């Protein structure tokens, strides 16, 4: 997904001289072709995220479209104020490409695990947040990022993630996608956990439970209409995300569903990282399992909620 994303920046830059790439001391050889062909639009700068965001904002105010890339935690936490003031307040077209959304950097520990990027950025007016589910979806997204108004945060997954999206479903920023219909439960997901949701829906179907799957690659602006329409059909709504349960997709969906005042109320549960810093290394997969961000957990949660078992509080 990362490779596709950066390759797309290069491809788009070939025909659009407004596009600028800014990296923060990335790995040697990153976007070498871009650097060689368009050196005046390629900036590999020091480890100085605050400065880079300001610099990108300045370029964007002048009509350029900078794509800024580094590790997601540094790109969100370190320079949060620059994001708020320089990018969002000025409403400039800067695209933040965050490597390692969620638990991707499990072996590197909590400083590198972007478990809160969606929550942090959701709070900021004018920020658009996208989390594609696979490389193909990234390929469909990227051309749309060029002229989309205001700043965008693009959350990258690990890479080599299974392809679960379909080429015949057009991507639109701000639009949710109903990946599967179902009359009993609704599974809402963003990013790579779409795979968990689709697998869970398959398993549930085999058990005679039809669960819809709503994929929300754009966490903000949220497609509330699609969420409410899908939720209206079912008794149970479960969200799943590779992110803290505080402030991310689950929170966003909960807000929408709670305020809709469904009667009877939906039985609702968020699946995600609890309010902790991950305390183990291992791999993205092992931490996902540790925090029960899995298809199995989805199946169990849906089954329990449908049978009236209250969800556990954690």
């Amino acid at each position, binding site marked *: 997904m990362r490779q596709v994303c950066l390759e797309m920046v290069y491809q788009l830059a070939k025909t659009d001289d407004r596009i600028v790439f800014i990296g923060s001391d990335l790995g040697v050889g990153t976007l070498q072709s871009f650097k060689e062909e368009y050196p*005046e*639009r390629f*900036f590999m*700068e*020091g480890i*100085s995220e*605050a*400065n*880079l*965001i*300001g*610099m*990108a*904002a*300045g*370029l*964007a*105010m*002048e*009509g*350029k479209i900078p794509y800024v890339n580094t590790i997601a935690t540094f790109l969100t936490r370190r320079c949060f*104020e*620059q994001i708020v*003031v*320089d990018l969002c*307040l*000025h409403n400039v077209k800067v695209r933040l490409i965050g490597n390692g959304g969620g638990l991707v950097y499990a072996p590197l520990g909590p400083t590198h695990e972007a478990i809160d990027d969606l929550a942090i950025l959701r709070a900021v007016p004018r920020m658009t947040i996208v989390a594609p589910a696979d490389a193909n979806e990234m390929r469909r997204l990227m051309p749309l990022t060029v002229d989309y108004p205001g700043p965008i945060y693009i959350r990258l997954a690990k890479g080599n993630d299974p392809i679960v999206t379909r080429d015949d479903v057009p991507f639109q920023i701000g639009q949710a996608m109903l990946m599967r219909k179902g009359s009993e439960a609704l599974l809402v997901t963003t990013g790579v956990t779409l795979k968990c949701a689709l697998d869970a829906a398959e398993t549930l179907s085999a058990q005679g439970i039809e669960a819809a799957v709503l994929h929300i690659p754009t966490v903000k602006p949220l497609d509330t209409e699609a969420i409410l329409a899908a939720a209206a059909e079912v008794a149970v709504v479960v969200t799943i995300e590779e992110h803290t349960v505080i402030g991310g997709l689950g929170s966003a969906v909960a807000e929408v569903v709670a305020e809709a005042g469904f009667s009877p109320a939906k039985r609702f549960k968020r699946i995600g990282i609890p309010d902790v810093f991950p305390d183990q290394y291992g791999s993205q997969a092992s931490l996902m399992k540790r925090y029960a961000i899995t298809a199995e957990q989805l199946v169990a949660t849906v089954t329990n909620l449908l049978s009236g078992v209250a969800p556990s509080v954690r």
Partner: protein
Amino acid sequence: MSSSLTVSKQPLGTRARLDRRSRELRRTIVRMLEKSGRAHFGSAFSILEILRVLYDDILRYNPTEPKWALRDRCILSKGHGCLALYVILAEKGFFPEEELWKFCQPDGLLGGHPEHKIPGVEASTGSLGHGLSIGIGFALNARYERADYRTFVIIGDGESNEGSIWEAAMCAAKHRLNHLTVLIDYNKQQSYGTTFEVQDLEPLADKWRAFGFAVTEVDGHDVGMLRTTLSRLPLDATKPTAVICHTIKGKGIQFVERNLRWHHKNKATAEEVHALLAALETD
């Protein structure tokens, strides 16, 4: 390398006398304070001559076309000094003078920190340490577009505590942005106390030199000296320029000068306003 001018040896900024125009601009600021009752007062007086010279003699701009592509860009990174910027921009015709009298009012254009919606304001500032990086973006764009506009960024000495200033300084030097000038309002006071007490910046000129800038120091209230210095930029064709402007917070009114109670003035009384105006009457 040692600084050619140190604060203790030669207290630049303390000697320049204010001419009629500088006093009149200050009177306008006092009248804005009278309307709003609060303002970063001392900070505005500190940078007034810097802005005056920039807008009178140095910058290329067109008030009827604030976004003119070839204008020189000027960012007031120490946004809290905005009263000084507002009176100059109004005088130059970027917006009607009446806006000055609605400072911080619900229906006013002008608030306690400059915002990019205001004609003539390039970037919203207020939180410190942002403007220089934005200026680097402007300057890089000028180079890419082969446009001959220049970028000026006014930062504070307190603001220079921010790490982002020094990130930006390294970046500007790396790119040899000789069409970028940073003006440091060195009044040696920040909110709590002197810069020497709170966070000493010395040797400041050496710091900027070490970060790759061509550096000069001026009396930041000496209009002639500022004009001469800013007319011969860049100081070095291979480097960005740093102009350390030695200033006095509250310059021009004896009981305000270096008085931290006037850094941000709250609830200015009618008596105080009267005293301020009276102090600016005399030569």
